[in-house]
């Protein structure tokens, strides 16, 4: 046996004659963790979809153990020991852990009936091998995101996977969960499993990967030892140009209070949340996952009904019973869950952008021409890459979807904009674009609530940060004191209310 597990030869993929992957020839070594990085649309997803049989290449070959294999469908890849753990998990919430793991591959007794005992036992072994404590009979619904991911991995291992492909596994995890995931990945590596790891977080790639491949615009840029590739060099090769400073200069509000929230309470969700948002301010909302940040936003939008508390714009009390009232009150929202509550993947670029603000395009029927013009302006301003304005969003990359989503939330011309995880699953240069837009909006006097799990961007963007913990505002840091340590003190309960 050589030390090459899988080799690709000039893999090329075209969609309706547009080339999205251009002659990729690489070798994946047995037992390594190979990182693949690149901007949105660089071809990472296409490449791994070819390796896992979801797409068939237009040209090119794949060799496994030096034998050419045909990957016509996903099942072919699974049989060859290649498993994909997609970004959006493929688990059925209503089923148990073991039922999911053996879905479509159920163990049976001689009688033909399902052998539950054997499946539960085997599931227990798989999970134990990953050193995680999950009940094989627990419903998927009751598991945390990190636990579900472990179930996905266990499922892959149940098929005796030799190559595990993980598509941005860390985007939904907290720092501690990521550390645990990395431990498990190293464990798998010791057992001889080869891993392909895709991430936008270059620091993680640097930490966990043995080698890193960079793709740009569908083309192979380089494949190097991770140790020989500093993070800023990775970013430079991904983008193909020098990245200027990531964050624009910070700005403070101009003193006038744009939004005042007093004692907002939703029983069991958020408790006595009060804060002021100033005109033109970018106010950070930090905290661990589940600390109630998104829930505060949803309560302001009227999606959750507060039992107490009030919301004031200036001196005027706002009666918000639903998102419609919020829009009329001049509040815009960029959802954290892009596909779940942000954009309509089956709608095209134009119709997504004008969905909230459609009233402005009535004449009295919808004026499609003006809709188009407005969409074109956003496409220019946000450098949204789409083949046409009539392209449905499901065919855009995550970063471009996010930009459309942002355009949608500001086309109603809100005076207050709440952005929730605005850069989740978005590449470096799209991130930078989004930071710049938020700043431009603040320059125009729009007040912004900036919710994020990435402390780095909170610190880079906000001159004032509220830290949430357990549904309460645990503390506030301002000016020079805005730092990772200060925020974590409050977020973890070292400081502030306990």
């Amino acid at each position, binding site marked *: 046996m050589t030390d090459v597990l899988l080799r690709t030869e000039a893999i090329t993929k075209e*969609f*309706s004659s*547009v080339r*999205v992957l251009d002659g990729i020839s690489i070798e994946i070594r047995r037992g390594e963790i190979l990182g693949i990085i690149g901007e*949105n*649309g660089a*071809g990472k*997803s*296409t490449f791994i979809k070819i390796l896992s049989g979801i797409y068939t290449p237009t040209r090119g070959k794949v060799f496994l153990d030096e034998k050419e294999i045909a990957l016509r469908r996903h099942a072919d890849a699974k049989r060859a020991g290649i498993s994909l753990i997609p970004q959006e998990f493929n688990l059925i919430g209503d089923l148990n852990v073991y039922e999911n793991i053996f879905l479509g591959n159920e163990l049976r007794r001689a009688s033909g009936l399902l052998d539950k005992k054997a499946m539960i036992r085997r599931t227990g072994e798989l999970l134990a091998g990953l050193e995680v404590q999950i009940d094989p009979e627990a419903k998927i619904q009751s598991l945390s995101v990190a636990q579900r991911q472990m179930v996905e991995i266990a499922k892959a291992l149940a098929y005796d996977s030799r190559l595990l492909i993980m598509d941005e596994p860390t985007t939904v995890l907290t720092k501690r969960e990521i550390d645990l995931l990395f431990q498990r990945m190293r464990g798998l590596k010791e057992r001889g499993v080869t891993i392909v790891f895709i991430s936008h977080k270059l620091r993680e790639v640097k930490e966990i990967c043995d080698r890193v491949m960079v793709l740009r*615009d*569908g083309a192979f840029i380089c494949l190097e030892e991770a140790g020989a590739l500093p993070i800023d060099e990775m970013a430079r090769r991904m983008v*193909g*140009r020098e990245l200027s400073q990531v964050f624009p200069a910070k700005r403070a509000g101009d003193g006038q209070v744009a939004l005042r929230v007093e004692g907002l309470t939703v029983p069991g969700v958020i408790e006595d949340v009060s804060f002021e948002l100033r005109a033109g301010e970018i106010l950070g909302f930090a905290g661990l996952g589940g600390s109630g940040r998104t829930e505060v936003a949803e309560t302001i*939008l009227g*999606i959750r009904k507060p039992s107490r508390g009030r919301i004031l714009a200036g001196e005027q009390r706002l009666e918000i019973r*639903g*998102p*419609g009232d*919020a*829009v009329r009150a001049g509040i815009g*929202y960029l*959802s954290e869950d892009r596909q*779940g*509550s*942000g*954009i*309509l*993947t*089956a*709608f095209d670029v134009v*119709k997504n952008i004008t*969905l*909230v603000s*459609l*009233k402005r395009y*009535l004449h009295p*029927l*919808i004026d499609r021409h003006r809709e188009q013009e407005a969409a074109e302006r956003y496409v220019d301003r946000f450098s949204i*890459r*789409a*083949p046409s304005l*009539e*392209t*449905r969003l499901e*065919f*855009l*990359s995550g970063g*471009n979807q996010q930009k459309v989503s942002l355009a*949608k939330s500001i086309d*109603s011309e809100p005076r207050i904009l709440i952005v929730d995880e605005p850069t989740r699953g978005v590449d470096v240069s799209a991130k930078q674009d989004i930071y710049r837009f938020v700043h431009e909006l603040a320059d125009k006097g729009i007040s912004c609530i900036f919710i994020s799990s990435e402390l780095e961007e909170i610190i880079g963007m906000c001159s004032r940060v509220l830290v949430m913990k357990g549904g309460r505002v645990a503390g506030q840091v301002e000016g020079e004191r805005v730092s990772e340590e200060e925020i974590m003190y409050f977020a973890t309960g070292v400081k502030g209310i306990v």
Partner: protein
Amino acid sequence: MAAPSAMTFPALSRLRAYNTAPLIALAALFVISAFASPYFLQAQNLLNILRQVSYSGIIALGMTFVIISGGIDLSVGSMMALVGALAVLTLNGTGGTTWSIALAVGVAVALGSALGFANGIAVTKGRIAPFIVTLGTMAIFRSLTLYVGDAGEFRSVSSLYGDLGMSTVLAVPTPVWIWFLLAFLLDVLLNRTRYGRYVCAVGSNEKVSQYSAINVDRVRLWTYVIAGLMVGVSSILLSARLNSLSSTNFGKDFELDSIAAVIIGGTPMTGGRGSIWGTIVGAIILGIINNMLNMLGVSPYLQGTVKGLVIIAAVLVQRKL
């Protein structure tokens, strides 16, 4: 940076196939029929086909909205019987004059909308699956019709009413004109108004719609009212044509025919998008198939089999597109 037009778009070239596929099927069917029977192309035959499908075709227009929004309305056939029965009773009760015809039309339209409203309220406020709600009201409306009519016939006493049903404008049957007029209006409603856009949005993803400040319940509720309104119009036209209606048979299978027209016309059962003109094409396809089966002397009992196969085939073809 070199514009890579980002990731692409396997379905880009296929996008429009959804709209053209039913039209191609219609054209093919038309040509085949023209060769299969010499009578097919006669103007009278073609107008007959259009008139025959216009009644369920009108209901299919409303059904298109319901299905795009992610719902279904199984009650339209029974509702048509109940609405038609009360319209004929109104007509007879007021003497069968021109004014009582107008009153009957008013009753049918109002009652249809009200019953649609009831369906919609049960679906949105009651949070009951549309399939269940309209399965229930399907049974209720039919049973009420049978009760009121004692399982017999409702005969109109007005010959004027019957004349209206038989009337033509410029040699084209009145129901066909009304069908096309309503299609034109509903097409504008679907594609050029906020409401129409919201119907697609709600059918596409309810949660995204809610977060996008759309009143999801109101949008869905009104799709059932539109369906009920179309039922009202159709029940007048068909009961006038027959100048009577049978409480057991009137509107029978209309839910099947109207849903079939929508599906064959390219609107997916999963909702989110759809086309009024596609539905018209779907209804005409069904009409031509029936017409050909008649001309070729196929047993009427077998026609349901063919219809069923066409519906299933249409969904199969759609999935491939």
